[in-house]
């Protein structure tokens, strides 16, 4: 698949389908764990989130993602592959902003490695989100790290 982490706008269902269709090529993988992050239409103080605008330090994203992937591969030796897609730009409520897919020989490493990859993305990827409300006001968000 493509080597790009950042996807302009939402991560589309077609893109996710393409990644999931590719997994059958690996007959050494018994478990695939996938995480999909979606923009919630949260109500905050009477206003509804209609979209999130993501911005990124684009040239640092690939090296930071590679560092995350290397950390995971060295901690979980049964992991065969790790894919990360993250939106940049506007993603509307109900649309997808993050896709992580981890394939491993067995389920435990697939599940644990996917979970840890998501946490490391929140912690290390130089990306910022701005919630945009239905009255067009906005608020910058900060991640709650696990």
């Amino acid at each position, binding site marked *: 698949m493509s080597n790009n982490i950042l996807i302009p706008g939402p991560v589309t269902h077609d893109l996710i389908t393409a990644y999931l269709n590719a997994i059958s090529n690996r007959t050494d993988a018994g478990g695939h764990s996938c995480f999909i992050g979606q923009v919630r239409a949260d109500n905050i103080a009477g206003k509804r989130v209609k979209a999130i605008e993501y911005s990124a330090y684009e040239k*640092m994203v690939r*090296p930071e993602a590679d560092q995350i992937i290397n950390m995971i591969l060295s901690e979980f030796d049964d992991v065969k592959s790790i894919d990360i897609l*993250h939106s940049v730009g506007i993603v509307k409520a109900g649309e997808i902003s993050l896709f992580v897919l981890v394939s491993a020989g067995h389920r435990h490493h697939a599940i644990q490695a996917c979970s840890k990859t998501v946490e490391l993305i929140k*912690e290390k990827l130089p*990306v910022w989100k701005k919630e945009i409300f239905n009255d067009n006001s906005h608020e910058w968000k900060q*991640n709650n790290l696990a």
Partner: protein
Amino acid sequence: MVVKVLFFGVLTEVTQTSCKHYNDVNSISHLKFRIQDDFPEIVHYNFRISVNNEIINDDAVLNDGDEIAFMPPFSGG
């Protein structure tokens, strides 16, 4: 000498820009002083600083052409 300073996230609102050049700053501490001079509000925000894509935690000497980023806490995902 000139360095390129990038601002991200909420800092783009504090500074009203995402990129600004500074002349004749020889260290991070010196640059921070100049930026606080231009944007006094920035002292109310948390941020980390990278020099040429490497996050730094201490003061550092700056060289001509360096790219410095002021980054609030990440909020991807």
